[in-house]
């Protein structure tokens, strides 16, 4: 958190709206935190300090004039370096796009601008958003603020680390197989992957058009609720975006879980889980139960089919997107990334189409099996303890490849299913690294998912704990 007095996005926004704190003060606090802490964690790719200061002063002046400002007015943010802003470099964490200057501004950045947010710059990420650990061969690994030997999670590595270290109040991430929720769990912050189609992807670097999602990494579920309301809803440009009305997500945060049922899926998600993770997860379930929720445990035989198809979609779609560069300049990718993309070319077209075709039926079956007797499902976000960067570095040693690929085991099924899913901190493992609780609901159940996460955070303070680096 950049300041003790305003530890969260909503506290900072409300403080600014009430005239208690200036945008300039909030921005200077973030810039000071970046100067002090980023050298150790390597989260920031480009810092736009002058532009941020100018924007903050303009917002302060507008407030003095009594102008109506948006719900995120005065709040400094940093964003994953794959959200395009016209005329500014967007590296996508890559060497190939090190000098790429887009001609458009992402819809979500336009909406954050209109809501009064202050964009301070861009954040480190996995190259082309394609690993779950946060390794980056071109800009250097982003490092976990809790212990720099450990992974931040990826692909939104800088987003998780920056919010955890208090460099900014919020950061956009993207999530195709867990890329918001993995850095959220490994860095100890809150991350929301909305329903597939909930947020427009105009001006966002693609990885897999079937599974890509835009969402925030923030401190609390309430922060996520306010942020999502700003960025959700159709923009008239992304034809895949749902026309479903955007509700007031904050209004749903009552803290009351009486009458709610949360199902723990024991198939797949808890298999071979590390003991410290299971202990923190079970303790989190007890907190939810104390808030009035009924906890049930179910098997889900569908997981085999879901996992088989999940493994297909993003690999093939990524291979198609990167085909020309893979022919012309494969040496410009990190070793693990070109290897991963290469394998995608080996999946037959009909297999890919079957994976797409089975997505709807499997979603219907999953809802019938897991989300009819319960409103939410709960799992650990990561079933193992946070791994070290060394033991998951596949570029350094091919023996690390399975560990690098395994981190998204509990997150990627929800991308295939398209379900809204949040990860909230729920404890620490025996090495002092964070553990995350993952909650998912039916399509467009963001309000219900965030309500449960908020209820949990009313009775815990894991989300407010700060690493030594912060």
């Amino acid at each position, binding site marked *: 958190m950049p300041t003790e007095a305003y530890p969260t996005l909503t506290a900072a926004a409300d403080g600014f709206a009430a005239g208690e704190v200036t945008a300039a003060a909030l921005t200077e606090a973030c810039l000071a935190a970046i100067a002090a802490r980023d050298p150790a964690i390597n989260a920031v790719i480009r810092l736009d300090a002058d532009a941020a200061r100018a924007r903050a002063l303009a917002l302060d002046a507008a407030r003095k004039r009594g102008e109506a400002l948006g719900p995120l007015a005065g709040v400094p943010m940093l964003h994953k370096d794959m959200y395009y802003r016209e005329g500014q470099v967007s590296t996508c964490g890559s060497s190939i796009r090190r000098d790429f200057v887009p001609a458009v501004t992402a819809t979500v950045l336009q909406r954050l601008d209109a809501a009064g947010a202050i964009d301070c710059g861009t954040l480190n990420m996995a190259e082309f958003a394609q690993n779950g650990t946060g390794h980056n061969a071109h800009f250097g690994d982003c490092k976990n603020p809790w212990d720099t030997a450990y992974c931040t999670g990826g692909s939104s590595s800088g987003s998780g680390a920056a919010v955890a270290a208090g460099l900014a109040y919020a950061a956009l991430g993207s999530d195709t197989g867990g890329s918001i929720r993995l850095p959220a769990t490994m860095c100890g912050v809150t991350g929301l992957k909305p*329903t*597939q*189609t909930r947020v427009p992807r105009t001006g966002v670097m693609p990885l897999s058009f*079937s599974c890509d999602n835009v969402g925030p990494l923030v401190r609390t579920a309430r922060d996520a609720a306010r942020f999502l309301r700003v960025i959700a809803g159709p923009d008239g440009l992304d034809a*895949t975006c*749902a026309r*479903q009305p955007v509700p007031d997500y904050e209004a749903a945060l009552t803290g009351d879980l009486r009458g709610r049922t949360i199902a723990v899926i024991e198939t797949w998600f808890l298999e071979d889980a590390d003991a410290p993770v299971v202990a923190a997860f079970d303790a989190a379930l007890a907190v939810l139960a104390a808030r009035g929720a009924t906890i049930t445990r179910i098997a889900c035989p569908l997981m*085999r*089919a879901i*996992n*088989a*198809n999940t*493994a*297909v979609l993003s690999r093939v779609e990524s*291979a198609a997107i990167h*085909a020309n560069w*893979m*022919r012309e300049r*494969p*040496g410009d*990718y990190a*070793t*693990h990334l*070109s*290897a*991963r993309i*290469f*394998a995608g*070319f*080996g*999946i037959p077209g009909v*297999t890919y189409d*079957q*994976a*797409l*075709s*089975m*997505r*709807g*039926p*499997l*979603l*219907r079956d999953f*809802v019938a099996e897991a*989300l009819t007797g319960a409103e939410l499902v709960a799992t650990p976000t990561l079933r193992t303890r946070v791994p070290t960067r060394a033991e998951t570095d*596949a*570029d350094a040693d*091919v023996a690390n*490849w399975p560990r690098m*690929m395994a981190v998204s085991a509990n997150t990627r099924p929800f991308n295939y299913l*398209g379900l809204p899913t949040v990860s909230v901190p729920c404890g620490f493992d025996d090495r002092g690294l964070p553990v995350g609780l993952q909650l998912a*609901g*039916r*399509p*467009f*159940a963001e*309000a*219900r998912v965030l309500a449960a996460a908020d209820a949990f955070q009313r009775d815990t303070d894991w989300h407010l704990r700060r690493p030594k680096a912060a």
Partner: protein
Amino acid sequence: MDEAFVTRRTAEIAEWHGVAPPNPLALVAVADLAAVLAECAAVRERMVFEDEPSTFDAALAATRDPG
């Protein structure tokens, strides 16, 4: 690693896409596809003829949260 599987896939990738293995790790990643394809084969029986509206978007709408 099933070298025959990897050799066959790598040749098909070159033929269909004009892409060569960029490094030795790429061959390991291709070898991993054997397990992926085995899992797909194991769940093939779920693939049935589906009438419209058959899209994923339709399923999202049909199963959405009742509020």
